[in-house]
Each structure stands twice: as structure tokens, then as C-alpha cells.
């Protein structure tokens, strides 16, 4: 009730800063370390491997750890796997981030409107969301990419279009509960406009669950991208991990490393993002685990 509640110890530690709580989470730190490596790889790729990752630099199927020039070996056409991994980092991150951002751009306003305005608007928007949740999402993504023809942007769009419903549901739920919070009522009472209230009082307080969800969505998006590539629906001009796995799977018996390395890298990146998501969840929002 007042400040000196001894049982409120966890609440107090949360006060001490989400960053500290996040960093106390060992998984989150590991995740952050891996992600930092991935980002570094993406940034350093043009420096370390200035030529195109598509260039055939050696004979095909050089096993890993045999030639210094191609430490991770070459693929079926003699392309450097290490170069592919480095350049692919950027693409995977871009697909993950941009599609997540796009999903947020669709999902957050819809959820905020549905939650704040309620009534018929809410009903209509939720029906619409349900529609997208009913269609098997991966099937829809495949159809979308096939329609738009595979490219980086079509893939991003397709992934965004199938991943926004959970955002909408989450934001709606949060806004719905925030709408009846007393500080939102206080803002109404002090004569602030609806837009200001949404922007200043409501949305910032939905931020932590959204951040957590977004970190997990990036992970899912990277998985989706690789799955689409697996079915041959990737952008043929971009070297991405998903593409590498997809391209290497037919020769997996002769050359395990072509699929193994990008597969492991995807696994690690997705794992890292999930660990970060969990860390953020614990640090920012112990309630979110319900929403997923």
C-alpha cells in the first residue's frame, strides 16, 4: 500500500532499471552476444569480403577447414560459404527487422484503435484480424510470395502480412486494459485530445510487451524467410542464409557443410533473439508470457 512493502522486493528491483534486470538474465546476455556477432558480421561483410558472395572462387565442394582461403568450404558452384554467411547476415536481419517493423506498422494502429475506440470499430477490426488468423499463415505467405514473385520486398511484405495479427491482439488487449487505467482517465479529465492520450499515455505503456513480442517476431520472420527459400521462393539476387540452406539441401548428403553452417547460423540467431526476448520479457513485462 505504501512504499515500504517488504514483499514488493521484485517490484523494487524492477524499479532499479530494466537494463540491470535484463543483464542479470544469463540467457539474455548470451543472446545479446550472439546477436552482436551477427550484426558485426553484417556490417563487416563488405569489408572482409568485398567481392560478391556469388562469385565462384574455388572448385566446388571444398570441405571446410581444408583451405585457408575458404575456411568454411565452398558450395556446389565453388562459392565461399564464409562470404555467404557474412553477406547473408545482413539480408536475414533486414528481412527480420523490416518485416517485423512493417507488421508493427500494421498491427499497432489497428490494435490501438480497436482497443481504445471499442464497440463497432473493435468488432470490425477483430473480425478482420480473425480472418488473417484463420487462414493458415504459412500457406498465405507462400501464396503472397508466389503472387508478387519472389524478391526481398515481396518476402518482407508477405511475412509482415501474416505476422501482424498477434501484434494487433496484444496491443488491443494492452490498450483495453490501459484505457480504464486511472491515469488515462486523468488525461481525459484534464482535457487532452484523444490522439495525445493515445500517443502519450497509452502507447508508451504498451511498449515493453511490444518490444518483447517484436524481438520474438524477428526470430520468427527469419525462420519464415528460410522456410520460403527452402521452397524456392527466396530472392535469387540476395545471398541469405535461408537461400543457402535451401540451395544446399539437395546436396546435403555429399556436402553437409553447405546446409550445416547456414542452418546452425539461423538456429543461433533465432535462438539469440528468443533469449533476448525472454530476457526482455523478464525485465520489462512478466505478464507477456501469457500472450504468446
Amino acid at each position: 500500500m505504501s512504499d515500504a512493502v517488504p514483499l514488493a522486493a521484485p517490484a523494487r528491483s524492477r524499479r532499479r532499471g530494466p537494463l540491470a534486470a535484463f543483464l542479470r538474465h544469463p540467457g539474455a546476455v548470451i543472446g545479446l552476444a550472439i546477436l552482436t556477432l551477427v550484426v558485426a558480421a553484417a556490417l563487416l561483410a563488405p569489408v572482409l569480403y568485398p567481392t560478391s558472395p556469388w562469385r565462384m572462387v574455388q572448385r566446388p565442394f571444398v570441405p571446410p577447414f581444408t583451405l585457408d582461403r575458404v575456411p568454411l568450404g565452398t558450395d556446389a558452384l565453388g562459392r565461399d560459404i564464409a562470404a555467404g554467411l557474412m553477406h547473408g547476415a545482413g539480408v536475414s536481419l533486414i528481412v527480420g527487422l523490416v518485416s517485423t517493423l512493417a507488421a508493427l506498422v500494421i498491427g499497432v494502429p489497428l490494435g490501438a484503435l480497436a482497443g481504445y475506440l471499442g464497440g463497432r470499430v473493435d468488432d470490425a477490426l477483430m473480425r478482420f484480424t480473425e480472418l488473417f488468423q484463420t487462414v493458415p499463415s504459412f500457406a498465405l505467405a507462400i501464396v503472397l510470395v508466389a503472387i508478387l514473385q519472389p524478391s526481398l520486398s515481396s518476402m518482407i511484405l508477405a511475412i509482415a502480412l501474416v505476422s501482424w495479427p498477434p501484434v494487433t491482439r496484444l496491443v488491443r488487449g494492452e490498450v483495453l486494459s490501459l484505457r480504464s487505467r486511472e491515469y488515462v482517465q486523468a488525461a481525459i479529465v484534464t482535457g487532452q485530445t484523444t490522439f495525445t492520450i493515445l500517443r502519450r499515455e497509452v502507447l508508451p505503456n504498451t511498449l515493453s510487451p511490444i518490444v518483447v513480442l517484436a524481438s520474438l517476431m524477428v526470430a520468427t520472420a527469419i525462420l519464415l524467410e528460410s522456410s520460403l527459400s527452402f521452397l524456392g521462393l527466396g530472392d535469387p539476387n540476395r545471398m541469405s542464409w535461408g537461400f543457402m540452406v535451401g540451395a544446399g539441401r539437395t546436396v546435403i548428403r555429399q556436402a553437409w557443410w553447405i546446409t550445416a553452417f547456414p542452418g546452425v547460423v539461423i538456429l543461433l540467431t533465432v535462438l539469440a533473439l528468443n533469449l533476448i526476448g525472454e530476457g526482455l520479457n523478464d525485465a520489462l513485462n512478466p505478464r507477456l508470457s501469457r500472450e504468446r
Partner: protein
Amino acid sequence: MAGFLARRLGKGILVLLAIVVLNFFLIRLAPGDPALVMAGEAGAGDEAFIAQLREKFALDQPLPSQLAAYLGSIVRLDLGYSVRQQMPVATLIGERLPATLLLTGSAFLISLSLGVLLGSLAARRAGTLADTAITGTALLFYATPLFWVSLMAILLFSVRLEWLPSFGFETVGAGYTGLARAADIARHLILPAMTLGLFFMAVYVRMTRSSMLEVSRLDFVKTARAKGLTEGVVQRRHILRNALLPVVTLAGLQAGTLVGGAVLTETVFAWPGIGRLMYEALLQRDYNLLLGVFVVSSAMVLVFNLVTDLVYRAVDPRIEVAR
């Protein structure tokens, strides 16, 4: 109850119709049409041939009248005719549907039962090595691409160890009947159902664990302990039962993803289900068939949602009042 079902049915039909209209236009936005695909596969073709095919597929009609015709037949529960496959769509889907139901059904059961079991174990031992091992494994499965696990599983269990068949629905031509056939199908089912199920198992492990930890902080758990109940009873009767509610909700929400994931699994394991049928229909621009698969799979999701809702209602007595 009847009212609830009627309401859900009405809502479901509306959602399905919306899905039909949406996908009808989506699919036709794709470049090419079935006539071109068939001409391409024939390795020969001239304008007359393609025009003939278009007429055959009724693709020469204006779009709105195509849509009207399709909606008209859908309302009569007729999914139309796949001219390309020379069969009614309902027949084609009907042949494939049991396989998909079997696959998704068993994957779902595996994921849910294993997920709840491991999740509750982890929650009960939260913070111990067992917890870390379970959540770590779950996270690993959650982060691994589905098709990758599938390939690895085939390599290991079919090729290296030769324990399990690598693909297909049953041993073709073996002539098994009755129990022998069921056993044969089960052997074929293990790998695809496991790989599809493991991903979702990871989801349920995490959900069950966090939900149980959350419930275990609630007051009535303290009440239960204050009664002097053993820890096992407290966990099972009070914590787990309440913790399962959000898991049931999640399972409902996951239905769409599960059916979607079946597309990948069916492709890798040559499982003759509707997921693969959908992918093939898409590549062949077999519009009616593709729409049919969408309708049926969406209906599957709706039915599944309905079932989870009914389960929820059966488990949670509050729901009658809350609605």
C-alpha cells in the same frame, strides 16, 4: 449451448466467405494461369491450344462472373471442379484430408502432451538443472527450422539407422490390411508427426511453464497448501488445471500455424496431405483446387478453434457468466 454453437457457426461461415473472396482475387493476381502451365508442361502449345484450355477452365469469363459462379457453388457446399486434375475438388481434397488430419492431429497431440508434461516438470523444478535442460531444449526446437530438423531426422533415422521409413503414407504394394496396415501407417507417421510436433511442443513447454509459475503465485494455491495437501496434489489439481487454460487458448491460436507448418512437413516427407496439394495447386494455378484447399484448411482451423473453445468452456465454469 445451442445458441453458442449457432453463433459460432454463423461467424465461421462469414469468415470463410471472406477468405474465399480475398483469396479468389489474390490468386488471380499471380502471373500466368493454368492454361499456360499446362501448355508449358506439355512442351508444346500454340495460341489455339491455350485458348482451348482457357475455355475449358472458364478463364475466358469476366472475373466477377467467375467469382459469382464460385461463390454460388460454395454456398451449395460444392467446391467446384479441378479441370486440370479432371476431378471434383471435393474428391481431391477428400482423398488427401485424412492424411493431413492424421498428421496434424498426431503432431498436435504429441506437442500438447509432451509440452504440458515437460512444461509442468520444468515449472515444478523451476531454477534447477532439469528446468534449464527442458527449457533449453524447448528453445532449441523452437529456434530450429522445421525443414532442417526434418532433413536431419531422415538422414539419421531412415538413412543411417534404417529404423523408420523416410517418406510416404504407407508401404505401397505391401498389401497390408487391418492392424498391420495401421502399424505400417504409424511407422510412416512417426517422423513427420514428431518433427512437426517438436516445434509446437516447444511452444507448449514454454507456455505451460510460465503459466504454471504464474498460477503458483495466486492466492488459492496458498489456500491449497494451507490445507496440508501434498505438493503433487497442489501442482496437479490446483496449479496445472488453472495453468492449462491459457495453454488451451494458445492451442486454438496455433491451429493456423500448425496447418501451415504441415505444408513444409508434407513436402519433405512426401505425405499425401492437403498442404502439399495446396503448394502444387498454387504452382499449377489450379484456382478451384487452391481455393478449395484454403476453404477446407480454414474450416479446419475454425473447427479446431471451436473445439478449444468448447474445451475451455468445459474446464472453466466462469465462462458462462463472462460472456
